[in-house]
């Protein structure tokens, strides 16, 4: 067994040392009737690295990788080019195989990185403080709602209809058990978000309004207006962002008045990975809310010689100290994904992020214009960043499947996201990034045209 260093000689010597004659003497506390005799029946025995690699490669090859097709999927997971140096760095054993930095004297690598990460996220979101990451955007979204209920001591959340349906579902699932009230609705398929309807739902019991920016249809809601309405009722605005690259081109939610900004960080550095692991981002605009934040926080301090250093801090909020009184049961975070995000963001910098965003937007505009010229296709959005909704004169789910058979990954049908909403069946989300070529756009347009004729 290539991962097990004990030799049979070692095992004998060690058994003698511990005073056991067989290994099963060490398992005496396991009731004999439950103890398994030999390897579990019906499972294969150990295999060589070559055999395992081959098996996994065969499975991998049964998937159509995004690089091998014109690719237009988004809806909360975006394909961007990740520089090779990002993957190099996260594979450094000192980062990859370290634990949570509970011993700060020998974990400054992870801690300084987290401090830099927190600062990058806070700046990107236009906030004062960000935490050291959460599981993903959807769980961060629920944590924001939970935090808003703690801050406002109210227990109702108003969700925009244009919040990612998975996020909505996670919030509703959690609330079902905590007893919070969630007011949600489906998105209205219109060129612009329905702010009026949303604002009308805010009342004096509302802890927070949750708005996605850009929203699930790719539209850009006016957060300022909503923030004002929410604040007028004593509620907080929770802004949710699923495409951080967008914030290189549009104003930050914090700047527009959001109180808590959460989102998915996957687009920077992390990659698609069939949906996980991803990276939850969480920030607050007002530093006074810090002690109500969930998750780990890294802070600056000094060591006994006065040197700057970093530690996990304010852990009195956390479960391992507070137990049942913790702000959240979250424990593990997404450290390695946070590192990938931070390295990629460092490579980008202000200039790179802005150029990346501009390039995404440029290509998305080209795609929208081109698809609008396909007979039977209407572009819904008035505004968008790198993703927009089209309506087609057909069942979009079927069209997506048919195009996939031709090797074109055309986007995410609303029918996939909202199977219960019949009227969405003609709508398709199309995402365009810097990895999309103009040739890809043309291929999609032609394939759509054929499918619709």
């Amino acid at each position, binding site marked *: *067994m290539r991962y097990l260093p*004990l030799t049979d000689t070692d*095992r004998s010597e060690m*058994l003698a040392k511990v005073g056991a004659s067989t290994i099963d003497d060490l*398992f005496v506390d396991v009731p004999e009737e439950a*103890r*398994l005799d*030999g390897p579990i029946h019906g499972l294969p025995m*150990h295999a060589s690295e070559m055999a*395992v690699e081959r098996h*996994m490669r*065969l*499975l*991998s090859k*049964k998937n159509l990788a995004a*690089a091998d097709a014109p690719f237009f999927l988004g809806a*909360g*997971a975006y*394909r961007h080019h990740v520089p090779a*140096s990002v993957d190099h*760095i996260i594979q450094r054993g*000192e*980062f990859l195989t*370290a*634990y949570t930095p509970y*011993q700060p004297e*020998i*974990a*400054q690598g992870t801690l300084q*990185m987290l*401090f830099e990460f927190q*600062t990058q996220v806070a*700046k990107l979101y236009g906030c004062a*403080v960000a935490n050291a990451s959460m*599981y993903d*955007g959807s769980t961060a979204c629920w944590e924001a709602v939970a935090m808003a209920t703690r801050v406002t001591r109210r227990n109702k959340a108003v969700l925009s209809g244009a919040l990612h349906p*998975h996020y909505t579902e996670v919030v509703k699932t959690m609330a079902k*058990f905590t007893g919070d009230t969630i007011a949600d609705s489906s998105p209205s398929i219109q060129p612009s978000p329905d702010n009026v309807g949303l604002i009308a739902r805010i009342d004096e019991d509302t802890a927070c309004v949750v708005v996605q920016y850009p929203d699930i249809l790719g539209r850009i809601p006016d957060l300022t207006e909503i923030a004002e309405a929410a604040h007028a009722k004593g509620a907080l605005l929770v802004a949710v962002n699923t495409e951080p690259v967008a914030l*290189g081109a*549009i104003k930050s939610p914090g700047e527009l008045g959001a109180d808590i900004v959460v989102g998915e960080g996957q687009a920077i550095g992390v990659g698609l*990975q069939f*949906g*996980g*692991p991803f990276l939850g981002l969480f920030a607050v605009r007002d530093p006074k809310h810090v002690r109500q934040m969930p998750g780990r926080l890294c802070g600056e301090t000094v060591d006994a010689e006065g*040197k700057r250093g970093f530690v996990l*801090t304010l852990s009195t909020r956390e479960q*391992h100290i507070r137990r*049942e009184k*913790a702000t959240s049961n979250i*424990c*593990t975070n997404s450290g*390695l994904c946070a590192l990938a995000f931070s390295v990629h963001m460092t*490579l*980008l*910098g*202000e200039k790179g992020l802005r150029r990346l965003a501009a390039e995404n937007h440029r290509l998305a*505009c080209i795609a929208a214009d081109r698809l609008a010229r396909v007979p039977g296709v209407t572009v819904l959005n008035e505004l968008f960043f790198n993703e927009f909704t089209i309506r087609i004169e057909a069942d979009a789910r079927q069209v997506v499947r048919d195009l996939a058979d031709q090797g074109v*990954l055309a986007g995410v049908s609303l029918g*996939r996201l909202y*199977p219960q909403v019949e009227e969405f069946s003609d709508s398709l989300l199309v995402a365009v990034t810097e990895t999309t070529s103009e040739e890809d756009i043309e291929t999609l347009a032609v394939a759509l045209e054929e499918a619709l004729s």
Partner: protein
Amino acid sequence: LEEPLIFEIGHAETTGVDLPEISEGRSRLGSFARNETIGLPGLTEPETVRHYTRLSRQNYAIDLGLFPLGSCTMKHNPRLNEKVARMPGFADVHPLQPQGTVRGALEVINELAEWLLKLTGMHGVAMSPKAGAHGELCGILCIRAALEARGDAREVVLVPESAHGTNPATAAFANYRVENIPANEDGRVDLEALKARLGPDVAAVMITNPNTCGLFERDMKAISDAVHEAGGFVYCDGANFNAIVGKVRPGDLGVDAMHINLHKTFSTPHGGGGPGSGPVVLSEALSPFGPLPFTARTADGVVHLAEEENAAEFGHTQAFGRMTAFHGQMGMFTRALSYILSHGADGLKQVAEDAVLNANYILRSLEDLLDAPFAASGPCMHEALFGDQGFAEGLSTLDLAKALIDEGYHPMTMYFPLVVHGAMLVEPTETESKASLDQFIAALRGVAERALAGDESMKQAPYYAPRRRLDETQAARKPVLAWHEPAPPAGTPTLSEQGGS
């Protein structure tokens, strides 16, 4: 050389990516186009690689040495797993691609699910929870959903004193009232006390087995039977499953729900704090309530992904909801499956045996020197527990731990479990050689002797780490959680003063 922050060495005009400057084109951003700067520093690739390489060297890691954190299971992370996770068919696929284009990904989920079910003897598995604590929540929510489905509104969850902090936090989160159950002097759950507390208000008991004292709960089956008889469910914290994988199946002990930390038992990397992955195996009673998405093989042998849209087709109509977007930690599934296939059924059994042997070897090599409160009651499982009894006045477990840093080791888990004073929980894992254990034991004996003898110099340890002891109080009292442009030194004229007439 100290490593500065990226904010101190980067520039807004510097970038490590080559992207064209876009001349102003038509924009569909309306009035939302950003005009303020963000304030993000950039570095070129050479600077970036160097910054993070140098930072990394201030970390301790399993690749550098033994990492004896009890209850954290810092074992070797095989490099094959990293290679597999990066295969394009796994790394570069979108979670919402049509199912026909991701058959292999679905097979990975299913194949791993089958292994987990067979290894635990359970009935169903929710693969999507993102980490152990998330899995706990999933399990408790299944229990709540099952109870609600039978109209049984119970309010209490019983948790032993020695439980992981996440256990009570999870139960509280699910709106349960948490009550502690005491341990007996053996370090195990007091069965009689538990039985006495059971009743129609008890929804569940959360038990860690092997427990946080590193001991197997001998009475597990009796506990389960009693809980079931009282109409409750048994949640087992599976963080320590590595000690018993292949030796005993939790399903055979009456467990209803258990999360499995893929990053512990199945070797996926911790990455400085995550990501984790916490699939939850469920008994037949709880399976109908498992959250979406889940995977199931239909009669024709083809794997299907059941999501909101098609759960009904697969008869999974009582799901309690959704724990997260998409399908869970795919990148961890590919790694864990590679690890499991590498070991096979025989190898996994050996894993448990070697992990337990290594822990007992440490226990027996130190019990003459360090207080080992439960050593007399028999063998430990995968971790050895010591207390600070006998330390010289003024010296603490913390001092010993910091002194161990100077010996080249990461300290063990300290002050946990709470039931032992000055607890030190040592988990060597199965991926350490005897030579490595012997060297560690010698180092630990050395610092233990100093602690017993009252070596005051330990109070200042570590001396040889990248940092001396850090001031955690200051960090918490005046939190500095983000970098800020330093104020100009006092006396420096401001721009307006400089230019002022």
